[in-house]
């Protein structure tokens, strides 16, 4: 599908208008919706993640790339749903109760969408019950939680405990992240995975659904 490599560039450079227009043109020209995602957009977001890890990109570039990808995805998603294509997995994510720092969370959401996941964004200050409700009603595969403050970190444990108490723990994988979070903390509270950056979220989520 090399004819639509411009879509790759538009997402990588964060040009939302170009991404939208190119997607429309490609679809009008009969391009396969799934292959636009798999062959251009996912590779573009992978490259965004790689450049972020390499310090080439920073938060703003990540966010505008995500915005461009979303603009394109809005055109494609209805077609994907109509065709019955399955997402790689469904992720419910939010910042935990008491925490409303959502830039990191939004980045993870964007990276996951770009990586082919369906994201149920629960927003900020999400109570344990809301996570459980998402598991019950949305059939999610992964619960992703973020916390930016040392004072709100304990809400992650509260949420996991609540999921266990609700008998839903074995139905989902749980991944966590945020500035004060460490791998040790993730193990301590019984999460399945820890991500140290938004860019690493996709690889972790892929591993979790494959497990």
């Amino acid at each position: 599908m090399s004819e639509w490599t411009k879509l790759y560039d538009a997402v990588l450079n964060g040009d939302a208008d170009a991404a939208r227009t190119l997607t429309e043109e490609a679809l009008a020209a009969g391009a396969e919706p799934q292959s636009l995602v798999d062959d251009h957009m996912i590779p573009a977001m992978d490259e965004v993640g790689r450049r972020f890890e390499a310090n080439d990109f920073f938060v703003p570039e990540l966010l505008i790339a995500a915005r461009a990808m979303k603009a394109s995805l809005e055109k494609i998603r209805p077609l994907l749903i109509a065709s019955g294509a399955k997402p790689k997995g469904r992720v419910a994510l939010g910042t935990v109760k008491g925490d409303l720092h959502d830039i990191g969370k939004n980045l993870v959401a964007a990276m996951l969408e770009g990586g082919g996941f369906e994201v149920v964004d629960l927003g900020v200050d999400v109570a344990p019950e809301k996570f459980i409700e998402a598991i019950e009603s949305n059939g999610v595969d992964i619960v992703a939680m973020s916390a930016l403050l040392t004072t709100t970190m304990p809400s992650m444990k509260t949420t996991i405990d609540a999921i266990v108490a609700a008998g839903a723990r074995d139905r989902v994988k749980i991944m966590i992240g945020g500035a004060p979070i460490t791998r040790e903390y993730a193990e301590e509270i019984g999460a399945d995975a820890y991500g140290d950056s938004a860019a690493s979220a996709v690889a972790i989520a892929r591993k979790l659904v494959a497990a």
Partner: protein
Amino acid sequence: MDSTDASRPDGNAADRPPVRIRLRPLGKTLTSTPGTPMINVLFPEGVEFPCGGRGRCRGCRVRVLEGELPVSPEEQRLLTPDQIGAGWRLACRQRVEGDLTLDLAQWESAVLADESSFHFTPHPGCGIAIDVGTTTLAAQLVDLETGRVLAVRTGLNRQARFGADLMSRLSFAMTSEGASTLASRIRTQLGELIGDLLAAAGGEHAERVKRIVLVGNTAMHHLFGALDPEPLARYPFETPTPGTLEFDTGSLGWKGLPEGCRVVFLPCIGGFVGSDVLAGLLATGFDRRDKPGVFIDLGTNGEIVVGNYSRMVCASTAAGPAFEGARITMGMRASTGAIAEVEARGESWHCRVLGDGEPRGLCGSGLVDAVATGLDLGVILSNGRYADGGDRWTLREPVALHQCDVRELQLAKGAIAAGARTLLKLSGLRAREVSDVYLAGAFGNYLRLDSARRIGLLPFGEDKLHPSGNTALLGAKLSLFSEHPQEACESLRKRIVHFSLGTDPDFQEAYIEEMGFPRKRPPAHREKPKETRRP
């Protein structure tokens, strides 16, 4: 006393006997090596250098009572012939070459300011003003009859060992005994500080102390008062107990003060924005201004106020500690060995090191300067990336600015600039409609304003920017001249609306945009000669 060795070269300074510098009104005598810049002698004593010691303001002026100091071109420009004749000099332009006795204008002028805004009505007795900072403490003993500062003491907040930043300290406060440990820690320390203050002033003033006024952010207010810290630990970060705290000295365990001496911790505004900002607004006359103004405290928790006397909106924005040189690879506080200034010279650049020795690291002002210079030289692109794709830029061996340091600064300056932008929008104002911008806190004093504009930290004309020093302490001091220090603050806080930036979509959008750097220097930054107005 005589002493003019100014003609001697500095080279043989080591052979010369140490010089003595006596400070009025403290009655303290310091010794130093001849040829030492006066800023290095006075800075550790708590003297502030509002323009960063560059001879641009008059904030550090001293009067020579005994001894001699030459007159520099900056002094000729900034001081009147009468003032020079009366012995006034700028401490930042001088070196100590011989014995001196100096009068420090700063510690008196704060209240007795020649500018009309600081009128005070004389009262019998003395008062003590204390700025309770997360990191540093500053206290002054003030004679309420004359307005003179009788003694000054500073210290590092000993609560810091239970968490250097606010959130980790609050986490500790929520453990069992945590809140009471922190309260007794700070109360004991302040009791000692007050003891030192009274002793430094000669001891005879202790009996005259009428009241003690404390200011600080909401967390410091709660941790001093042993209030429940829980509401401050999580969203929406609003406390049910923001009001004035009053104590008698006995209940705090403070000794040597007269019966009836009241201790007042001024009230908080909302969120983490506390009485340090209220005091700052009083100190800068913000509470009386008609025209729209902006007040910014460039601390770890950057506090911003926009408005005029009738209505103000305020918010705090998590700028992080980059401005203090923390989380920067070679970051350090503004002390000897810190690169404090970086300036482009043609295709190259020049670094100024505090204390003139070998560079050891980079302080906050040096960081902002380095990035501004990097942008000018094309070393750093407007998206923050090094143009050559590398990960460091050696400023002067062995000090380098790393790519991740530029990123830290982008986060910090983005938070402040986006916060200011959001509050301006909320107030229906444009940046150019703002007539004055007050920069509170130590960093505002050392920051080079044109560099701050270059990196897009402060989107205001340079002539509008007023580095204002420790406005929290100044405001606390002004409050001492009232029988009921909390009254002015209580009335002021009713006119302030606290706004939570975290949930605002405009802020999020602005934050992303403000993380980048302006492509070019903002226009007209050097259209006219340097401003000489008093900050």
